[in-house]
């Protein structure tokens, strides 16, 4: 019996087989599309200039999602609202329960509701179906509010989403808010904006009694792996009241009285800054940019909050300092062990929003590691400028990348870990590179001081795993080490 592989070789090739083509044209092109040249920068090679916020190039397999995705991820963690996706089934299916956004109460957000448009709806319009779906669902699950998301084809068939929402709102007596998130009308950032506009419709619709002068809204945290609870606990220890979580573990009623808070804390500026600005204009609530990732950023954020409230409560700074001291004295000794092992290892970062990239660069520095590649799907010009400032020479900075580019950078820089989301994971693993999920799907809390420790554990667990020595890319390195001097050399490589 001939074996399968031998048989495959015996196959008469087609006029030009695919493998031949590959062999013929490998050097013809490099991995970066000419059109994308200005979206990749190598620090130190030329003066900093980078294009971003462009539409993704056709055929380039962008890692980006769509407007709808932007809206959906921001609003998703509002746990007691109905989230109805008006469109064909896919858009709803792929966003069902995809974020680990935890709730301390209701879990309506963990369902996926869709009007599941059919051919006849596309031809005759989906308004009637939307109306019936909405009213039926509201009766069935009694949400506190409803968000109705528009998708690409709804934008084309021209359903009057706003009209239907108004009608249902009148009939059912709850806020029914259209989200203008037609996928093709821009990228994820346009979706963030649509989500902010939708939420802004809720803000200011409920009384603001019993709100302390030391009060904040938390914007741009989605309570992945329970992170917002960590932040809330810190604020509580500082004596600061949280009015609304926007949107992790979020509640409609909290949003409605969010205008009663004294300050907005904005993390993940890309996704919720628009809401903060609207609230500033309308209600004169100032906002503060914060980040809860990494030791420095976490501590600095808390200090800034204390600074803001120091006139209202002179003791708040003392409490904050005590908090940071307590947390750090517990964290540092534990962190040191990880740092010893990880010192000198190399990292690559590719995340959705740039803010996370800043904190990650600093967090890696804390672990004694270097960052060789950093990029994001939706960073702005200022974001990239800032990245340029905080990174070391030689670092590659990239906007809206794709698997081919990312894989070639990983190989070129021979990194030990790649931080990204689900779509980046297999690229890393295929090449024998460690991976840390820093995206929606993570199950470990990475924010707060405890988050830094968890992050170190995550990094350690992948970078220091013994499995890499068996992967083809690293194997050569290891076997060479074994030949010369066994333990000695391996130790050297591992450290």
């Amino acid at each position, binding site marked *: 019996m001939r074996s399968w592989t031998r048989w495959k070789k015996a196959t008469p090739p087609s006029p030009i087989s*695919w493998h031949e083509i590959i062999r013929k044209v490998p050097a013809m092109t490099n991995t970066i599309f000419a059109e994308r040249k200005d979206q990749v920068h190598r620090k130190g090679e030329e003066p900093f200039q980078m294009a971003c916020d462009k539409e993704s*190039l056709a*055929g380039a397999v*962008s890692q980006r999602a769509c407007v709808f995705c932007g809206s959906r991820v921001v609003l998703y963690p509002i746990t007691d609202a109905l989230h109805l996706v008006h469109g064909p*089934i*896919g858009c709803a299916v792929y966003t069902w329960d995809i974020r680990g956004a935890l709730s301390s109460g209701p879990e309506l957000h963990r369902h996926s509701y*869709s009007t599941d448009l059919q051919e006849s709806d596309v031809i005759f319009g989906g308004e009637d179906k939307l109306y019936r779906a909405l009213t039926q669902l509201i009766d069935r699950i009694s949400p506190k509010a409803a968000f109705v998301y528009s998708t690409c084809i709804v934008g084309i068939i021209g359903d009057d989403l706003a009209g239907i929402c108004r009608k249902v709102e009148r009939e059912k007596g709850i806020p029914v808010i259209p989200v203008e998130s037609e996928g*093709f*009308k821009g990228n994820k950032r346009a979706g963030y904006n649509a989500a902010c506009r939708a939420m802004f419709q809720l803000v200011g619709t409920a009384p603001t009694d019993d709100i302390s002068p030391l009060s904040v809204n938390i914007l741009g945290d989605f309570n992945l792996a329970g992170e917002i609870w960590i932040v809330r606990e810190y604020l509580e220890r500082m004596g600061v009241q949280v009015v609304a979580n926007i949107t992790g573990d979020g509640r409609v009623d909290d949003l409605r009285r969010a205008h009663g808070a004294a300050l907005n804390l904005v993390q993940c500026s890309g996704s919720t800054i628009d809401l903060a600005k609207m609230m500033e204009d309308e209600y004169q609530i100032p906002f503060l940019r914060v980040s809860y990732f990494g030791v420095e950023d976490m501590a600095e954020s808390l200090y800034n909050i204390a600074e803001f409230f120091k006139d209202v409560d002179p003791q708040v700074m003392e409490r904050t300092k005590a908090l940071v001291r307590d947390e750090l004295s517990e964290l540092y000794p534990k962190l040191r062990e990880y740092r010893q092992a990880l010192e000198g290892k190399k990292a690559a970062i590719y995340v959705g929003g740039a803010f996370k990239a800043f904190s990650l660069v600093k967090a890696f520095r804390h672990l004694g590691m270097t960052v060789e590649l950093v990029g994001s799907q939706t960073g702005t010009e200022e974001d990239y400028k800032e990245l340029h400032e905080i990174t070391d020479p030689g670092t590659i900075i990239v906007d809206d990348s794709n698997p081919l580019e990312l894989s070639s950078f990983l190989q070129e820089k021979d990194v030990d870990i790649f931080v990204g989301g689900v779509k980046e994971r297999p690229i890393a693993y295929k090449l024998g590179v460690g991976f840390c999920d820093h995206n929606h799907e993570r199950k470990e809390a990475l924010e707060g001081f405890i988050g830094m420790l968890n992050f170190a554990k995550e990094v350690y667990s992948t970078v220091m795993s013994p499995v890499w020595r068996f*992967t083809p890319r690293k194997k050569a390195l290891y076997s060479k080490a074994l030949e010369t001097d066994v333990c000695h050399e391996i130790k050297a490589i591992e450290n």
Partner: protein
Amino acid sequence: MKSKLLKTEKEPYVATTDSCKQCAPLGACLAFKGVEGSVPFLHGSQGCATYMRRYVISHFREPVDIASSSLGEKHAIYGGGPNLKLGLKNVMAKYHCGVIGVATTCLTETIGDDTPRLVKEFRDEFADELECHGNPSIVNVSTPSYAGSHVDGFHSAVRAIVDQLASNVPAMENTVNLLPGFVSPADIRYLKEIVHDFGLNPVVLPDISETLDGPAASEYEKVPSGGTPVASIKGMGTALSSIEFGRCLANSMGAANVLEDRFNVRSRRLGTPIGLRETDIFMDALKEITCRTIPIKYELERGRLVDSYVDGHKYISGKKAVIYGDPDMVVALTSFLTEIGIRPVLCATGAKSQLFKTAIKTVTEEILDESPEVLDNVDFYDIEETAEELKPDVLLGSSKGYKLSRKWNIPLVRLGFPIHDRFGAQRICQLGYKGTQDLFDMIVNAVIQAKQDRSPIGYTYI
């Protein structure tokens, strides 16, 4: 409109809650992934492609590149042709691929892009460039999601590949075409082994055994190796016979039917071979094609399977199962469960399928007195509502049923697609005698474990 629910007269639900299907282009992409050197390409907005990649990657844990024509607002108004062509050009230049599988999406179908025409125009306008990239084949398929689920998208794509590429240029001798439907990479490896052991050369389409379950690499492969070679697809018209799995697949959707009509290659339509009876039928077909007896290896596998049926039957006897997923997988699993003494009480699929009910009846009537409840075009809300009253002991299907399993505190045996909360989905083999054996062990153990977990006594001996 939803199927009428069991014993209830109430108005059917308008919205779909927790869907039990995915959208059509996703199925098409999976099919295209099984052709050697191919890159799936969605003609539509960027979002759809990214979402599907994420969804598929989470199941297979492999890189899955799906290109997109990335239409923006102005393309949606003036037509997506220019972006489609630009995208094809870019994919060709960067991936050096052998095939580009273009599937349409809801958006491009709604704005009325004539994709076949655009592809043809592209071929004419860029003839030189195509030439310099080794003339990759471009297959196109229409997959508006509002007209069908991922199951339809998958079959449409397989059919389009055959329709647009197959010919009667012989690639090798003694071939048999095997169109297995959407099964796992491990299943495909095993199927090839079986066909091979009968002395035949299998042309499996699509063959995702390597492309979606590849080895660790020293360099990133732009397009993963493996997949059905185009030369073999071109030779499909010269095969001894075609075997296509799927009792729920309409003849008008069968790829083997195309080969039969056009090249006179006999199409043998069989059930997906899970369980003894359906596998026997598959083996019989191979015996018939080759005029050979079944290789001893499979006799032994079969014998061991029967032996285990006997050894394990008491643990599972009379247990009630709810099965959900793609129609053909549900039918095959139902057939298998029926023969081991588990009672299927609800067979459900999110897809619309007219043949589903008949198929379930066909595979159960010989053994069961009472037909199970059969529902197509349902979501998990419907499934929950119906199944609640039926008090099942075990669930079989994708990860998405986990919430029900948790709520009712009964085991879920994860099969089908997607499996997002367990490891190794690409290596689950459930076809043939060997696959059935693994499946049988898994199910018996799931039932035993549930009993053990619930028992106040910590049995260590069962």
